[in-house]
Structure formats: structure tokens, C-alpha cells
């Protein structure tokens, strides 16, 4: 295996389970090299994207670039690597599928194209960790991802970013959700990064389809994170929820959210909370609601502030030292329970956030 122990430790910090006992599939790409792609449960496919297209040429017409076409968005075609994950009709994975995109070399520009297909009535949890080695100075990561949730399918996709000060990142993703499908997308970024710009879009095409985007973003001095989600409610009884928690230790966070109803009888709610830990830094919340119809229910709430002294003292009066009380409040603010993760993943994520 072309992956060293120290690198695996790095990957474990973004939720990767190297023992793979409790995983339904596993994928690692280092720079542009696929280290492995494994299937650990029947009914699940995990393949490098190029190989998948070779085996199943129909992917080109059925999935590749299709989600972007539907939302009328350009995407970079010059990519190398990425995963193709498919959960077959009716298959419900017991454990999460895991994928890791790892930046190793100095100034390397990693450009991947990922496709995830959840077939009819299938259910899966996918955790993707993206991180970089110390040597990867001034590197760049472009992640194009497409999600297809077919009729009554369910996908809980959790992405953990753990970069460093000199890395620029640009995830570009789109999801198409068919009738009765559910897409839950969780994003966590807790480490410094030079720049992240991302605006994943979910197109709720089918009746009764639902989407929820949750994000927890920490920002440090000299980091610039322009992060948001967009949901297009394109059919009856569709619903969308966007929840974001932005915490600035001195960096800039633009927390966007856009819910657009292009069909009647749709619902959406957007909630954005920001916490300023220091006097430095910027949090700019931009919640947008848009409708073409009367018969919709769209709402948003946004609040930005600091940790209240009385909250710290309240916990201190229960015997919790002031500094620990502050960390507890920040961890509470990042509340991973909002992500609706299965216990096994929630514990992994808590391990990550507990280090704050």
C-alpha cells in the first residue's frame, strides 16, 4: 500500500477508519494516485471514476456532468481521479462508506470528479475526508462532485475538511434528488485554510423530495471561507433546510444560503448563526429566499454575536473552569447532533470537534 502510517494518522483526523471494520466501502486518493478503492458490503460499488466509466460507459450519458447541466452551471472538465460510488437499488448500508482525498506534494493541483449514485430505495452514509500533508505547500484542491438520489433513496453525505494555511480549495457540487428522495449534506471545516469557496446546489426535482445542508465552519486569521448552499425547490411538497454555524477566531467567513422555489407547495427554512471569538475577523451572513409562487413557506433566521459572559459564568458556577466553559459553549454551538448522523459517525465527528 502506498500510504504511510503517518499519513493514515492524518486521514484518521478526518474520520477515516483504517481498520475498515465498520465501513461499507473505502477509497483513498493521494494527489492524483488512487491508493485503493474497496467494497466491503454487497450492493455497494466503489471505483475510481475513470475505471467506472471504462466498465460502465453509460455513466457518461447518465451522470457525468448531468447535474451541472440541469442547474445550468459550468464545471471544470480537466480532472484526474475521483470516486464513483453507487449503492444498488434497495440496498441499505449498515456502515458508512468512506473516502479520502489527500494532498501530499508541494504545489500539487488535485482536481477530482466524484459521482455518487443512490439508486431507488437505497440508503447510504458517506463520509469524505479531505486533508493535506505538511509537505503539500501551496497546494490546491478542486473537487467536482455530483450526487444522484433516485426515487425514495437516502444519502447522508458528510464532508470534513482539514487543510492548512497555504492551501486553496474549491469544491463544486450539485445534487439531483428524485421523488421521495432525501439528501442530507454535512460539512465541517475546523482547521486553517487559505481560501475555500463553495456553493453546493441541490435540485429537488421529484415530488416529496427533501434536502438538508448543515455546516460548521471555523475560521482562523488569514483564512477566507466563502461557503454556502443553494436549494432549488422544483416540485410539489419539496422541502429544504439550510443550517450553518460560523465561528471566527479572526478569519473571514461569508455564510451564504439561498432557497429558491420554482414550484408551488414547497417549504424551506434557513438558519445561520455566527460566533465571533475575537475582535478580529469578519462574519457576513447572506441568507436569500426567492419564490416564483404564492403557495410556499420560506423563512430564515440569522444571528451573529459573541459568547455571553453570563453563559460562561453560569457553567463556571457549576464548577467548570472558565476556559473550559468557553470551549464547552463553542462545542455546543457547533452542535454536531444537528447533523442527524448515526452514532458511529457522530462519535467520530465529536472526536474531531472535541479537540477544539
Amino acid at each position, binding site marked *: 500500500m502506498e500510504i504511510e502510517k503517518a499519513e493514515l494518522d492524518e486521514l484518521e483526523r478526518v474520520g477515516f477508519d483504517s481498520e475498515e471494520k465498520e465501513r461499507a466501502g473505502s477509497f483513498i486518493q493521494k494527489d492524483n494516485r488512487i491508493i485503493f478503492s474497496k467494497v466491503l458490503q454487497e450492493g455497494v460499488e466503489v471505483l475510481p471514476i475513470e475505471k467506472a466509466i471504462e466498465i460502465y460507459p453509460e455513466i457518461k450519458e447518465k451522470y457525468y456532468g448531468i447535474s451541472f447541466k440541469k442547474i445550468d452551471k459550468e464545471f471544470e472538465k480537466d480532472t484526474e481521479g475521483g470516486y464513483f460510488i453507487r449503492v444498488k437499488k434497495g440496498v441499505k448500508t449498515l456502515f458508512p462508506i468512506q473516502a479520502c482525498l489527500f494532498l501530499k506534494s508541494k504545489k500539487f493541483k488535485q482536481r477530482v470528479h466524484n459521482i455518487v449514485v443512490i439508486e431507488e430505495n437505497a440508503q447510504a452514509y458517506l463520509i469524505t475526508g479531505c486533508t493535506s500533508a505538511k509537505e503539500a505547500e501551496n497546494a490546491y484542491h478542486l473537487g467536482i462532485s455530483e450526487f444522484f438520489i433516485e426515487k425514495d433513496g437516502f444519502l447522508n453525505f458528510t464532508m470534513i475538511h482539514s487543510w492548512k494555511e497555504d492551501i486553496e480549495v474549491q469544491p463544486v457540487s450539485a445534487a439531483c434528488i428524485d421523488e421521495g428522495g432525501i439528501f442530507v449534506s454535512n460539512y465541517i471545516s475546523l482547521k486553517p485554510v487559505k481560501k475555500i469557496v463553495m456553493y453546493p446546489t441541490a435540485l429537488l426535482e421529484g415530488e416529496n423530495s427533501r434536502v438538508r445542508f448543515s455546516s460548521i465552519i471555523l475560521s482562523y486569521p488569514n483564512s477566507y471561507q466563502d461557503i454556502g448552499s443553494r436549494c432549488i425547490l422544483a416540485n410539489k411538497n419539496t422541502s429544504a433546510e439550510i443550517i450553518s454555524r460560523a465561528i471566527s477566531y479572526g478569519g473571514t467567513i461569508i455564510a451564504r444560503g439561498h432557497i429558491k422555489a420554482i414550484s408551488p407547495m414547497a417549504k424551506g427554512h434557513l438558519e445561520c448563526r455566527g460566533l465571533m471569538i475575537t475582535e478580529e475577523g469578519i462574519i457576513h451572513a447572506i441568507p436569500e429566499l426567492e419564490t416564483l409562487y404564492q403557495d410556499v413557506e420560506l423563512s430564515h433566521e440569522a444571528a451573529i454575536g459573541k459568547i*455571553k*459572559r*453570563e*453563559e460562561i*459564568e*453560569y*457553567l*463556571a*458556577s*457549576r*464548577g*467548570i*473552569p*472558565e476556559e473550559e*466553559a468557553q470551549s*464547552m*459553549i463553542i*462545542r*455546543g*454551538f*457547533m*452542535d454536531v*447532533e444537528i447533523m442527524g448522523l448515526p452514532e458511529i459517525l457522530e462519535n467520530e465527528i465529536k472526536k474531531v470537534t472535541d479537540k477544539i
Partner: protein
Amino acid sequence: MLRIENISVKAGDSLIIKDISLFLGKNERMVIFGPNGSGKSTLIKSIMGLSGYKIVNGKIYFEDKDITDIPVSERAKLGIGIMYQNPPKIYGIRILQLAKYLTENGTEINQLAEKLRVDEFLRRDLNVDLSGGEIKRVELFQVLLQKPKLLLLDEPESGVDIENISIMGSVLNEYIKKTGCSALIITHTGYILDYVEGERGCVMIDGKITCQSKPRIVFDMIKKYGYEKCEECKWK
């Protein structure tokens, strides 16, 4: 247990507590009455060391240790526990999570939660989506799990219905009987006296303690004559 020597306390620019001295022995409960704005809550918050209340003069000793300037959490660790009148809402921290911080004994958590009827909302965020009475029960739940030697109770019965006062009062009384802990209790309604009799009572008016006697006697006097008479009280 608690010795307050000539303290004066400012909240912002206003002098709220004016040169108060007070002694509370071991296994002794003192009930403080007084009109709104007389400084009762300020006194309790000053003992806990909460910010916004500046002790401009005097000293506070707890078990002979000068605690006038020590952090809030250290006061709690020494054995001072406060039950807040209006605790803040804290999102993302569950009541159960805090309970587990206060004691590792799960049985103790469950038994007390059941007694105080807070078991059904242990997984809720601290003071979020709870009624006034529920908040009070959760406050008592937390402070008793701390096993304090000195309880500071700021209007424990306000906003609580009769049935719940009875639940809280019995649990509180049981704890006091079992541990012999001392307590400073602020009350407006006097309902708490049905459960915790208290050895001493006093009235606070305009930042000063004006009269001291048995709590029941003080309360009856207030009911009869109002607070105005307290200023000319013979026990002054």
C-alpha cells in the same frame, strides 16, 4: 461557614449593597426577605463572584478562606452552589451532559431526575424550551448534583406552581436534612418556608439588613405591616 465582613457592592455605578456584615454557621439556613431592588440578589451573586457586581469594600470568607477575589468556578469547587432566578439559555449543551460533568454516578442522576421530574427533558439544551417551573426544577437538579456545603437560592419558588413547589421543597428539605448544608434563601412569597423552615430570617432594605428574627416571625410581620415597618423594626 460563611462570613461577610462589611461589604459594599456596586453594580455599574450604583452602590447596591451598603456595608453589610453577615455570619452563617454550619448547618444553618437564613431566609432573606425584602422588596424588589433592595439588593438581595446582588448579595447572593456577589457571594458567587458573578461579574457585574464589584465588591468595593469588605471581605467574604468561606470556611475561613478569603474568597473575595477568587474565580467563580473555584468558589463552586469549594462547595458553594447557586440556584439562579433567571438562568441563561445555552444552546448545544444538554442538561444530561452537565449532570454527567457534576457526578459520575448515573444512578444518582436518574434518581434525582425522577424525583424532580426532569427526567423527560434531560436531553434538552440547558434552559431552552422549558417553562418557568421546569427551569427551576432543572436548576435545583443541577445544584444538588454539585453537593454544595452552602446553597444560595434566589427565589426558588418564583414562577412555580403549587404542585411543583411541593416537589422541589421536599427534595430540598431532604437534601438539607441529609447533608446539614447551610443555605441563604431569598423568597418573596414565603412558600418555601413550608418546606425549609430556616433558623434565621432577615429583611433587606435599600442595601442594608434591617431586622433579624425567626423567618416565620419576620414573614408574618411583613404580611401584617409591610416593608415600611421593617425600617423601624426593634430587631434592627
